[in-house]
């Protein structure tokens, strides 16, 4: 067990270290997310008196785009420098490599998201830090980031077409997004009955996370 976890941790640590060192990608993901929230609050402030009903949509679309933007680069680097092959050559199973990568991305995304939640709490004057909401954010992030991590492997080796990743990732993530938006709305008391939506979110997140783990080894084969 330890043998299997160790190398995966090595990947996590390496990716977090690289992400921290080369903050460009993540910082700009965070910056764009912030800008998006800012743009929304500027855009909506005048148009609608009460801006709070829009919060779930604002938050999740931003999370989604930021996640695709940042996660999409995670394998691009590896394939550019040929180090992806080095990972596959090692005795670590591809699944462990994937788990390490996905974990690093999820951690980085969660950091960005909590910053966003803090920012939104101030800008929209709504308390966004409840346990329920944290669970929802966690579920949504795990589901969407595990999927974009898998897809980024594929689009990295499919040479080009920057647009391909979002085109592939977005429709797959729509069910998850819907669940997340509605569940968030319910948890902010903007809607009644969180349960079915949280269920949809959980099912969609589980589906994409589980399938991504299963399919990754097949996807990287040549």
């Amino acid at each position, binding site marked *: 067990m330890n043998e299997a976890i160790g190398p995966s941790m090595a990947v996590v640590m390496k990716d977090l270290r690289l992400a921290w060192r080369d903050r460009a990608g993540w910082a700009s993901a965070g910056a764009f997310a912030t800008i998006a929230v800012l743009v929304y609050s500027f855009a909506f402030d005048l148009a609608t008196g009460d801006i709070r009903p829009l919060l779930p949509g604002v938050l999740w679309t931003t999370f989604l785009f930021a996640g695709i933007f940042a996660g999409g680069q995670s394998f691009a680097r590896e394939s550019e420098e040929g180090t992806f092959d080095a990972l596959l050559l090692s005795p670590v199973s591809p699944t462990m490599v994937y788990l390490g990568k996905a974990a690093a991305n999820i951690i980085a995304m969660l950091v960005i998201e909590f910053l966003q939640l803090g920012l939104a709490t101030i800008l929209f004057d709504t308390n966004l830090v409840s346990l329920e909401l944290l669970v929802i954010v966690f579920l949504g992030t795990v589901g969407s980031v595990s*999927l974009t991590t*898998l*897809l980024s492997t*594929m689009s990295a*080796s*499919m040479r080009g*077409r920057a647009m*391909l990743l979002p*085109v*592939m990732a*977005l*429709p*797959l993530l*729509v*069910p998850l997004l*819907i669940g997340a938006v509605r569940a968030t709305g319910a948890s902010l008391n903007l809607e009644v009955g969180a349960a*079915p939506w949280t269920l949809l979110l959980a099912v*969609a997140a589980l*589906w*994409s996370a589980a*399938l*991504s783990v299963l*399919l990754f080894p*097949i*996807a990287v*084969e*040549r």
Partner: protein
Amino acid sequence: MSALTSTLQRVYGLWWIVLPPIVGSAVMAMIIGALVVAPREIIEGDVQRLLYIHFPSILAAYGAFGVVFVASLVVLWKRDLRWDAVARGAATVGVLFTGLTLATGALWGKPIWGVYWTWDARLTSTLVLFLIYAAYLLARSMADELDEQAARFAAVFAVLGALDIPLVMFSVTWWRTLHPQPIIMRGLERPAMPAEMLAVLLIAFLGIGALALWLGVLRTEAEWLAKRTATLRAKIDRHQGA
């Protein structure tokens, strides 16, 4: 082995003889049935005739996407590019018929709901289904026919996207929607509509089903031939020396 293959090939060749007349007559029957035989719906009027395309189309699409799902699993399991051709063929048909459902639904919606489109769970999930498989076709067509890895990527994508099929099928029962609840399937024993309507609908199922099957076979065949042409072209290029 070769005996089996040749038998299969002979059976396969029969599609060319058997399918076209079946498809032709079934589609003719469907059109005549929908336009002439079926009674005019009392409340909705003539637009209701769109049902004979609207509903059978989505069923054909479900079938096609089911084939995509299975064929993709086989691609992942067996690494056989022929199943990639099957998956692509079926996906094309599925996208086409989902598009038909969307288009007829939108046309139907204007007089009934007053708008072409609304963000209702069924409509949205149907649109997402359309987009997923359109993205599948897009991603697959960007790579070479013979690129095995691209075929595998596409298959992974198709398997991931299969979650949306049950979401579309059950969205009406799971969430309150503007879209009509399923009555036809449930009501086959206790018909909720005139017998003529039901009969025409059954013919439409047949016609659209046969059409979908025929188109799927054609597309698959075309993919297959494209793969073989690509192989031959590569061989010719390479054997001139270089």
